[in-house]
């Protein structure tokens, strides 16, 4: 019998011999190590792991992973990864991308890969800036943000990654700060378990061109008060004192304090990531104080490769053709003597 046991790996097994060339202090180092630590926990064989990236700082990521990998072209990683996964559905395929790569030049592939629900994991490093081209505003930069290409302030309103993704039919969406490696590692593991396209937005600080862009949410001193980390099946509680929560008031989400105005934990919303209807997931993505992190949406659905596989099996059983010659010599053929 063929052995399918996966050997015990450590993060070192996934570390390539290439020198990492990100700027000192960049969250990308945190993400890289979180990934190298998550992979041994996933039960996948090293040779079955493939990292595909586009262009940008984040897209150098595959070079640092000792797995199969391809550093592609700008914006196209989701499409390349689609081909990889359809060609060999046994592979664990990861897309590494940034806000410019996935939402500007690759916007079209980004929405379509989510719509199709192929079993891929997409890690989107959102730093609200173009880093590798040295500091131009990106599709997630804020209005008014001063950058190399917006010296008087950015006039283009930004995308909200999660809202865009869920609008494009994303079944799995998670968001996590770039400085919380433990939670990040866990989300990577969950995304691999999920059958379908998983999108994880990482709020990644760029210390050079957009330093502090998420500090109001991710800063050590504030993050417990400014982040609601949601978990499926658990009430939406946050805050240093674990005394704040979220309730639904009409068509709005409202922050409440447990113990004030007669509010108890029973009154809080319980997170249901598996709900097909994305309404509440979208509402969670719209609140700003706190922002919501964790796995916001995780709705199980058929994947594209499952649908395709089923169709191929059905066509095979319906067809009398087994070899290409059967086709070539079928239908209106005639003999010349």
């Amino acid at each position, binding site marked *: 019998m063929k052995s399918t046991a996966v050997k015990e790996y450590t993060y070192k097994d996934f570390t390539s011999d290439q020198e990492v060339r990100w700027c000192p202090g960049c969250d990308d180092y945190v993400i890289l190590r979180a990934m190298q630590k998550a992979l041994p926990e996933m039960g996948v064989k090293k040779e079955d792991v493939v990292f595909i990236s586009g262009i940008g700082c984040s897209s150098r990521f595959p070079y640092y992973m000792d797995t199969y990998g391809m550093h*592609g072209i700008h914006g196209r990683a989701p*499409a390349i990864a689609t081909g990889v996964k359809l*060609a060999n559905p046994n592979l664990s395929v990861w897309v590494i991308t940034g806000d410019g790569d996935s939402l500007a030049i690759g916007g079209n592939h980004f929405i379509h890969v989510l719509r199709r629900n192929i079993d891929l994991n997409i890690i989107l490093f959102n730093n609200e800036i173009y880093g590798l081209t040295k500091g131009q505003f990106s599709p997630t930069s804020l209005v008014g943000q001063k950058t190399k290409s917006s010296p008087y302030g950015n006039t283009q309103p930004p995308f909200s990654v999660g809202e865009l993704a869920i609008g494009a039919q994303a079944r799995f969406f998670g968001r996590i700060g770039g400085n919380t490696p433990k939670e990040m590692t866990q989300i990577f593991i969950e995304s691999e378990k999920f059958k379908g396209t998983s999108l994880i937005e990482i709020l990644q600080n760029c210390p050079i061109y957009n330093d502090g862009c998420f500090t109001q949410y991710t800063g050590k001193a504030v993050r417990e008060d400014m982040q609601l980390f949601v978990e499926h099946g658990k009430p939406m509680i946050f805050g240093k004192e674990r005394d704040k929560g979220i309730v639904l008031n009409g068509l709005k989400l409202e922050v409440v304090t447990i113990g004030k105005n007669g509010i108890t934990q029973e009154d809080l919303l319980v997170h249901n990531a598996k709900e097909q209807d994305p309404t509440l997931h979208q509402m969670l993505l719209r609140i700003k104080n706190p922002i919501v992190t964790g796995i916001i949406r995780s709705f199980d659905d058929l994947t594209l490769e499952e649908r395709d596989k089923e169709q191929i099996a059905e066509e*095979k059983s319906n067809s009398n053709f087994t070899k*290409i*010659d059967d086709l*070539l010599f079928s239908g209106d053929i005639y003999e*010349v003597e």
Partner: protein
Amino acid sequence: MITAKINHKPKVEVLEAVIIRFVGDSGDGMQLTGTQFSDTSAMFGNDIATFPNFPAEIRAPQGSLYGVSGFQVHIGNVEITTPGDNVDLLVAMNPAGLKTNLHAVKPGHTIIVDTDAFTKKNLKKAEYESNPLDDGSLENYRVIEVSMTSLTKEALKDVVGLDNKSIIRSKNMFALGMVYWMYDRSTDHTIKFFKKKFKSNPLIIEANTKVLNTGYYFAETMELIPNAYSISPAKMAPGTYRIIMGNTAIAWGFLAAAEKSGFELFVASYPITPASDIFNELVKHKHFGVKTLQAEDEIAAVTSAIGASFAGNLAITMTSGPGLALKGEAIGLAMIIEMPLVVVNVQRGGPSTGLPTKTEQSDLLQSLYGRNGESPVIIIAASTPANCFDFAFEAAKLTIEHMTPVILLSDGYIANGSTPWKIKSVADMPEISNNIINNAKENWHPYDRNENTLARNWAIPGTPGLEHRVGGLEKDRVSGNVSYIPENHEYMTKIRAEKIKRVQNNIPELVTEFADTGDLLVIGWGGTYGSLYTSVKQLQEEGYSNIGLAHFNYINPLPKNTEDVLKRFKKIIVCELNTGQFAKVLNINFNGFEFLQHNKIQGLPFGNNELIQKFKQLVK
């Protein structure tokens, strides 16, 4: 003015070949009518070539000049290599069809018209000031006036449950019935076709069969028809044949290559005219395990194919000119990571959107040079609808064996044209070797190369111990890791070019036909083969034994013996459906030759007469 007498008495005349063109509104079913006539003739044993010519609009306004759809077929008991220039019979279903095609009818020859369509309104739409059927403007032709619409309605008056639209739509079958009688063809094949095509709708089968037969008997009974013709079967090599269109042949060539090579086939495409039918054909064959992706755009089509290739499939994408432009950057990626990839470009009139449904050969330089950086790839071109099968197979073979992208050029003319194909079994196709490495060994590197072909070895994800990274940044010559070392970049640029050059050792030499040496060498490439062959052959028959034909299927690299062939002729003329792109390529590659040019940029194939005139001028 022609004064030849027109004989109105029926007689049977034996012909060598005949050219027929069916024209009407784009909704009149002219493509179906033409296809049925050509299939029936092929099954009878004639050699055939067809040329559909239709507007880009799906249902252009009825009766308009630009909405005319046509289908030309050339059948014969002799070798037929083109659909022909001027026609012996024009079947015009409306005034616009007559107006736009009259110039193509040989003087003294036959025109069949549906008189019911020659209404005031339709004449106006066709910009006729007077009715050409009455004003004497057609006196140099044999005009057969038939009220086809009324006769069709009459034939179907007893068929209960048929709506008026379906009745009128079947009038093309009346015309086909008439033509079947005139050329001594059986209606059996077409009736069989109705039964299969409309098997869920017996009423439509009944109606079409009835109208087809009515047309047939009408022609037999009416003395209007001047002649019945007989064309005996052609002498063709024994074997099993079918009629095949170029696009279908390309699709099947890839199926054959996948089976032969043992690779799974992955096909990704974005709809574009006239390439779409290759994809439309391949998606029918999921039962062979073909994986298909209709992508969100041209770039996703090519990049998903690159991903599939990286994961070990035989990956194909197909497009037409504008799509090739969009795929350019990704082809460069496949080239630098040295992965197999086939890109089919079915050329159409350009630039920009150009003439989507018309033929042209103007993407040659785009294929050669349309990428950033030094980015040579293999380029081959099919030259007949039938050999599209062979060149699709060849494209797959070359890309797998040489680990570099292949661009396969076709064009609208051979893509939609059809000819008889002596079917090849997959067993008769050449073997395809590969560069896959299955086992980790010490000192293995992703960029280790085959010392003959320089193809790098191919380690596919899922293979333990061979984990490695590739990418669009310049690669170290051995490890494939990123390298900015100046000498390495120059080395890699040169070795990637040298790898393409060495493909010469794996492709056939250039052959010359009709003459090995002489006064004039006619050069062509790709889809113009039939036109050039017919013209040089005709000149040969007229006694010009000093004209040779060298037709190129391999563009990059060029065949090894190209210069030797060029040297054997006093004059060289390069004939292309562009302003001289291949002539430029030859000029760059071979010094000391004068490459004369014959070019046409009308969205149409070469005509026999224009070529013959040109060649005669050069050898007199």
